[in-house]
């Protein structure tokens, strides 16, 4: 036997047969249930509530939570493929999974035994919807410095503050909230039926318009002691950090979905529109733009696959690789969307084609879960996994 034959397979860049099959199912489902409605949801500023029920029925809310905890136990690359397909169809739908799973995984990882008993299984099954309550009117990128305060009262805590931009905040049942407890950033799971909790709907922003954004008003909002996540003072460095790490993984895959959607729209359009006596796709400068889109979307997908593989094995370099994937994929999405509009000419700026929505949605991916600039100042400080 030659020495080479004894070498283990090494880096896997192909999907396993089961992952391919799952991808086929996700793709078919998104084409049937999401793509035909995405334009209307975007216009109306809301997805259909029945879609949330359907996602729950399919066990796609809480999919990455371990099966023992009641979750889908989906392997993280397969979960990425699901996220890509949803992102290809509608970024607002993708963002529902992003924030719900951030909350569910946080309870699984950092929740007290009592909180896990109470909330984990319903979150893992999507029966209770979770969301992220981090940002505030005055606090975005510098999230560790939230102004919301918590104080100890009796056996529990009381929170006061104002949160803004909560994705699916209009319908979530609980929020992962960061507050300062005696000056130390601390995380809580705040249920919407807590006394002193109220919320108000926000106007849909330009991108992910259908994601039912809400502001949260915490006015003497009382939560039980078991609703604190992690230790006092470790709310940002550990609880929110690991939630954002998952969020970046989700947004990275969702961005690949946007880039893929742009590519498909452009392949269709340039194969039917003629200028200068030939199809657009026969013009060399058009081919160049298509090539950029093809190469970059593939590169982004591979970075996501690798991050997924490292996350699955618990590699400490997974956080850095996920950041790199998010950084590259979100920039790929915005570049692809901009080129997609260019290739559609004036039509690209109308509602008759989806590429305008892709651009608006892609812009969000460069702002959330750490903006492009925040990634640029963080990635050099991280230690990536060995390649």
């Amino acid at each position, binding site marked *: 036997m030659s020495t080479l034959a004894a070498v283990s397979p090494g880096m896997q860049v192909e999907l396993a047969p089961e992952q391919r099959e799952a991808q086929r199912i996700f793709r078919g489902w998104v084409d049937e249930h999401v793509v035909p409605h995405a334009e209307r949801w975007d216009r109306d500023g809301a997805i259909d509530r029945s879609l949330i029920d359907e996602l729950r029925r399919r066990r796609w809310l809480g999919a990455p939570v371990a099966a023992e905890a009641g979750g889908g136990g989906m392997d993280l690359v397969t979960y990425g493929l699901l996220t890509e397909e949803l992102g290809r169809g509608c970024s607002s739908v993708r963002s529902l999974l992003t924030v719900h799973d951030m909350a569910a995984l946080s309870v699984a990882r*950092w929740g*007290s035994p009592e909180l896990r008993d109470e909330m984990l299984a319903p979150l893992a099954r999507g029966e209770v919807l979770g969301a992220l309550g981090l940002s505030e009117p005055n606090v975005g990128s510098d999230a*560790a410095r939230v102004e919301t305060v918590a104080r100890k009262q009796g056996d529990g805590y009381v929170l006061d503050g104002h949160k803004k931009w909560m994705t699916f905040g209009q319908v979530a049942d609980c929020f992962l909230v960061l507050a300062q407890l005696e000056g130390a950033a601390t995380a809580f799971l705040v249920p919407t039926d807590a006394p002193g909790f109220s919320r108000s709907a926000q106007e849909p922003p330009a991108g992910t318009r259908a994601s039912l954004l809400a502001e949260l008003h915490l006015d003497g909002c009382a939560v039980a002691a078991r609703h604190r996540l*992690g*230790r006092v003072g*470790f709310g*940002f*460095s*550990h609880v929110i*950090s*690991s939630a954002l*790490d998952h969020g970046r993984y989700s947004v990275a895959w969702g961005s690949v979905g946007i880039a893929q959607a742009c590519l498909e729209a452009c392949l269709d359009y340039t194969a039917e529109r003629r200028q200068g006596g030939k199809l657009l796709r026969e013009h060399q400068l058009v081919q160049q733009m298509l090539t950029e889109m093809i190469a970059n979307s593939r590169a982004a997908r591979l970075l996501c696959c690798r991050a997924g593989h490292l996350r699955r*094995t*618990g*590699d*400490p*370099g*997974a*956080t*850095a690789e996920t950041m790199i994937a998010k950084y590259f994929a979100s920039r790929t999405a915005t570049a692809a969307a901009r080129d997609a509009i260019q290739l559609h000419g004036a039509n690209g700026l109308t509602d008759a084609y989806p590429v305008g929505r892709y651009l608006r949605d892609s812009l969000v991916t460069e702002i959330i879960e750490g903006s492009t600039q925040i990634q640029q100042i*963080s990635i050099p*400080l*991280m*230690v990536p996994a060995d390649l």
Partner: protein
Amino acid sequence: MDDRKQKIKLFLSRFFRNHDLAHDEDIFALGFVNSLLAMQLVQFVEKEFGVTVEDDDLDLDNFRSIDAIDRLVEGKLAPTP
């Protein structure tokens, strides 16, 4: 065990390039440690040594130096009475 300290040192040395980290050196005093390293340290300890970092272990003193991390792992691997 020295082998364990060696592994911890190897991991930390990727953050503190060009600096020969002493076993009792306070890594937080070196500047450079951000919240991302804090999280990566937890992931490293869990993956490399097969232990679970619990809420009560989340004390900066447990992660302050190679010796401190080694003690944390030692304690977690010790059979509970």
